[in-house]
């Protein structure tokens, strides 16, 4: 390892100032503030007392919170996997010099542009057994057909997956597409000479090269998972019962409706710690590998 490093331009440090300020004031500050509030008895407004871990104890005695964590884990795995796969596939297929590329791209991306308050309602309707797909199937004569996940305790969370994948995979597609387009044409030529089928090129050559794009998408989706809220509120309101509760909704409920920002802060901190526990090893492994490769 180098003891010293080549001097870095002064301008580089200047350029980092906005980021440094943002990190220190907005993010680090908020995190510390939140941590502080989480050990107080704050209700609507932050209080300055100190109540120790009582908010945390209450939090972990709260079934709904535990369920939320469980739900978001299931949801997250499915959502991220589905978005990455579908997004990548869409990007690949759109990259085949197809007709009406612009229109197709817009079609796959449009859900991202629409407020979930409205589209969530549409999904709620479509998935509702009395109104939506199941009803249509019944009318078409498939009397036995059932598709009532949204009202099913055990399946409701999957409907959230469907709707949010519908919303987010277009963005993943755009991200992948921008990566795909960056691959040097010569590599494609080399692969054609080697007689490698196109799909195989995508899987074995292009996909590994898209590593950075994939990791961007992954983080992006992960953030979405942790923050998933709109879709749940618009589609199931966490229901039936608490079957599709998620941490962000829990936090939002306590932050506003239930006016208990102490508990909400504790929940945020726990959420953050959980994320850290998941991300840190990944980050570490990646950095290690990068350091080795450099």
């Amino acid at each position: 390892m180098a003891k010293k490093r080549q001097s870095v331009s002064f301008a580089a440090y200047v350029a980092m100032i906005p980021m440094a300020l943002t990190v220190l004031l907005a993010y680090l500050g908020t995190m510390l503030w939140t941590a502080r509030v989480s050990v107080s008895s704050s209700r609507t407004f932050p209080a300055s007392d100190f109540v120790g871990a009582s908010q945390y104890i209450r939090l972990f005695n709260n079934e709904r919170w535990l369920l939320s964590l469980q739900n978001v884990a299931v949801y997250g795995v499915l959502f991220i996997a589905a978005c990455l796969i579908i997004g990548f596939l869409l990007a690949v297929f759109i990259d085949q010099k197809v007709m009406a590329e612009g229109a197709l791209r817009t079609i796959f991306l449009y859900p991202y542009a629409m407020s979930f308050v409205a589209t969530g309602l549409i999904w709620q309707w479509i998935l509702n057994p009395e109104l939506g797909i199941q009803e249509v199937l019944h009318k078409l004569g498939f009397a036995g057909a059932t598709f009532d996940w949204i009202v099913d305790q055990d399946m409701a969370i999957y409907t959230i997956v469907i709707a949010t994948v519908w919303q987010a995979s277009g963005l993943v597609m755009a991200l992948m597409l921008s990566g795909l387009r960056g691959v040097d044409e010569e590599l494609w030529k080399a692969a054609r000479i080697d007689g490698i089928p196109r799909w195989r090129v995508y899987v074995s050559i292009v996909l590994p090269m898209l590593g950075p794009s994939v990791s961007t998408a992954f983080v992006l989706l992960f953030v979405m998972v942790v923050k998933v809220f709109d879709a749940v509120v618009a589609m199931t309101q966490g229901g039936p019962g608490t079957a599709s509760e998620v941490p962000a909704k829990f936090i939002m409920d306590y932050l506003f409706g239930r006016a208990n920002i102490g508990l909400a802060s504790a929940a945020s901190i726990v959420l953050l710690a959980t994320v850290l526990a998941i991300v840190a090893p990944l980050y570490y492994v990646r950095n290690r590998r990068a350091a080795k490769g450099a």
Partner: protein
Amino acid sequence: MSNVAIRNLQIQLGGNKVIESLNLDVKAGEFVVLLGPSGCGKSTLLHSIAGLIDTTSGQIEIGGKDMTWADPKDRGIALVFQSYALYPTMNVEANMSFGLRINGTPKAEIARRVTRASDMLQLGPLLKRKPANLSGGQRQRVAIGRAIVREADVMLFDEPLSNLDAKLRTELRRELKQLHKQLGATMIYVTHDQVEAMTLAQRMAVMKGGVVQQFDTPANIYNEPANLFVATFLGSPGMNLFKGRLEQEGARTLFRNEHLSVDVTDYPFKQPPGGKQECVLGVRPEDIDIGNCDGADNAVCASVSLVEAMGAHRVLWLDFHGTQVAGIVQDQQQIETEQELSFSIRTKRVSLFDGTSEQRL
């Protein structure tokens, strides 16, 4: 073994006509070298044979079948890219074996070929490295390796040894020749190294501006260049040229200008020369005998303007009435610039070109 026949090939890239009605007939199992100045369309030609560039018009036949619009993978070819085009995320071994694995070659066979290629290319210790961690020459060798493990019927090499040191290059040259014999594959090989071209080629095509100027054995091209371009392009230094006229003096045919008079009666003219034809006389440096300026027969004097030591020999540049004439000396005799030396032309091995069409007479 497949022949490669190209008929009236025309290729446009980005609006430029890069190749214009090119014809080339490479026999099955032949080793053909493409030679030509930078940007003349050699890579483009290889890519079009490989099916990586759409032809504008014309036809490409490989192994007797029309392959103009066939997919690269159906053409039975391998190609070493000038820019390597290695798969950046795969290590050396995977780069070489990827194509084979896809094509379902048995594992043992893959291992055999990869080992052989990596031995030949001295890549053994690097098999697990990614391209980004290799030196330029090492990358180039991986590119070669990737092509040769395919053992294709037609192998296309685009300046495959350009970034290798002389010693390795010599070894690989020999290995490639070996490979050619062993596989019996047709090989089309672009190089700028004339030694490589001369030693490898069964036939050599000299290109210029997308057009083949001459396609013949190396010796023929070297000794009897088809036109002025070929004459000057080959050889290092290139042919010495003297402008002048052809004159008949009785039975003798003489090349004449103000300072020179060379008897070319024995020159194998394609057509009997007419009277007082403008022409250019070409003489290879090694066909110029250098001596002391003591007024020998057929010799003229000139002063040395530059001496280039080349290791095994030296190149002398003589200033002959404003023209630079190159000659080669083998011995170790002391030569100074400004020194006056005589030179004489070995008339048996000269070339003559038409003054206007620049074609060989």
